[in-house]
């Protein structure tokens, strides 16, 4: 019997072991700091977008919740961090924590709506909440700066040592660090009993309930966590650009982040990051040709991707992540 127990333990352990590709990924992410010193502002945007996409992955990839308004939490976090700094508390880590708490709370408040109701209701509610926040930010100009955006944000140096410079050096390392830490936490969560129960709910919620899993409670929890992650991404926007525009609550933000996630593929935590890289690259390239009609090409990309491209790209990713390492391992043994 003990041999079987060892096998069981080994299997469970294997599920959460770090792949070589993962380690390579993070080392590369750090290395670009020295490899592309002139593109750090763009890289910073990619890191922030990756974090935002990671937050969506938590609810979409792991819990199956389709949200049309995830930007609501991005915006909440951005304005929270921005306002905190503007009114005297300029430490970025404090601002980050504050933003995460505010958006997490919002997520918690919204979760009963999200958890009940069907797919269509959820789309409506998420869209509606984002629109409400957009309206509030637009109208409450005295607080948010309205359509002109929130200005006059002064951020203190990170940990009192690294001040934000014009080239994005501090910004990129700061955003990357936040992304990495939050990623580690998310990774641990998804490999925990909690994460397993989420996968169960996503896979077959009838069976999940029949196995003792309380779907509403778990979904509410992950939604709250995802909201606070999105808030963190928002805080990074506010802190690294020292400006919050109304655009942060726009519908296209919610649509873009969904596209980012499905490019990379939901459900394995890296999809958002890969998607962010591809998306920003696309955006950069296309905007060089047609800055005004970028929306058209993104729309076309979306249509083609959903119709055909998904199997192509995801097949490629799976090949790199799973089959190649297996073949290498096979050769060794």
């Amino acid at each position, binding site marked *: 019997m003990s041999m079987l127990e060892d096998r069981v333990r080994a299997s469970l352990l294997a599920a959460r072991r770090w792949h070589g590709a993962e380690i390579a990924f993070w080392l590369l992410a750090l290395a670009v700091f020295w490899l592309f010193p002139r593109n750090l502002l763009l890289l910073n945007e990619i890191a922030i977008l990756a974090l935002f996409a990671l937050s969506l992955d938590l609810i979409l990839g792991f819990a199956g919740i389709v949200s049309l308004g995830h930007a609501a939490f991005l915006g909440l976090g951005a304005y929270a961090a921005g306002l905190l700094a503007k009114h005297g508390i300029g430490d970025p880590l404090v601002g980050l924590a504050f933003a995460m708490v505010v958006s997490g709370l919002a997520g918690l408040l919204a979760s009963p709506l999200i958890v009940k109701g069907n797919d269509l209701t959820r789309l409506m509610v998420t*869209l509606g909440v984002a629109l409400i926040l957009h*309206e509030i930010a637009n109208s409450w100009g005295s607080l948010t700066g309205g359509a002109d955006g929130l200005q006059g944000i002064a951020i203190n140096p990170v940990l009192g040592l690294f001040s934000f410079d014009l080239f994005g050096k501090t910004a990129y390392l700061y955003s990357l660090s936040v992304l990495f830490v939050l990623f580690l936490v998310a990774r641990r969560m998804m490999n925990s009993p909690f994460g397993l129960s989420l996968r169960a709910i996503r896979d077959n919620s009838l069976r999940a309930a029949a196995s003792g899993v309380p779907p509403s409670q778990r979904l509410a929890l992950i939604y709250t966590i995802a909201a606070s992650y999105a808030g963190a991404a928002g805080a990074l926007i506010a802190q690294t650009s020292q400006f919050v525009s109304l655009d942060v609550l726009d519908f296209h933000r919610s649509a873009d982040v*969904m596209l980012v996630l499905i490019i990379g593929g939901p459900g394995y935590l890296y999809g958002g990051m890969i998607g962010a890289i591809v998306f920003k690259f696309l955006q950069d390239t296309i905007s060089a040709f047609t800055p005004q009609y970028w929306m058209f090409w993104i*729309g076309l990309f979306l249509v083609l991707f959903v119709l055909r491209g998904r199997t192509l790209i995801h097949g490629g990713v799976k090949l790199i992540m799973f089959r190649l390492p297996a073949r290498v391992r096979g050769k060794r043994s």
Partner: protein
Amino acid sequence: MLTILFDGIAYGMVLFVLACGLSVTMGLMNFVNLAHGAFAMLGGYITVILMQRLGVPFLLTLPLAFIGVALVGVVLERVLYRPMYGKNHLDQVMFTIGIVFMAVAGADYLMGSSQQIIKLPAWLQGRFNIGGVGIGKYRLFVLVICGILAFSLQWGFTKTRFGSRLRASVDDARVARGLGIPVNRLFALTFALGSGLAGLGGALGIELMGLDPSFPLKFMIYFLVVVTVGGTSTITGPFFAAMLLGVADVAGKYFVPEIGAFIIYVLMVILLIVRPDGLFARGRA
């Protein structure tokens, strides 16, 4: 006060015509078509082009907008939408958002980004004064047209063979197929009809809601509200939902202009909390 009620009802009527196609489509194929507003926008632009570039009288542009968009609907359904039926909701959402983006950018490129203004025929301009209540002529016209449409749709839905086949298919597509009802063909027809109605609604709505390339995005949530609140299994459900929405929107914008649009969203969220399956949805056993 009554004028506002009247205006709200007229507005609601147009919303109904715009959204009822979406409602039946969603109920029938369980397909989330966020691009519905793009069809409406197309109808509006057809009217604008016909009137401004070809001098076609306004009244004639209406059936032309309907037919034109319905035809586009037939083609798009065949070519683009059909492969999407089996896919999950996320894919459908992303796909239709892609279409919206293309439509919005396309309209911007072809027609420019400014609001379109049409010149209504003289007999539709101005207002009547009935017992101290101002009744806009155009709004009255819209109310009558849409009212007739609503009655015909309800009649068609409940009293004709096509309608009963449609209702059966909405209720349970699998059983309907088993009974020999050609559900896919039904859907193609319904999609075309719904798109045509959206186009007509877009044409009628130029004067009431404006027309610019951001129309599909601006009104996406209105259509979704009508469908969610009104349910997808009847014609009367979306009708009353649209009325409610129209009156609330007009009244809100009049009485509290700073947060006018805001009220709709709050109302919708509250409604969905109380009744997650919609106000008028028929209870499913």
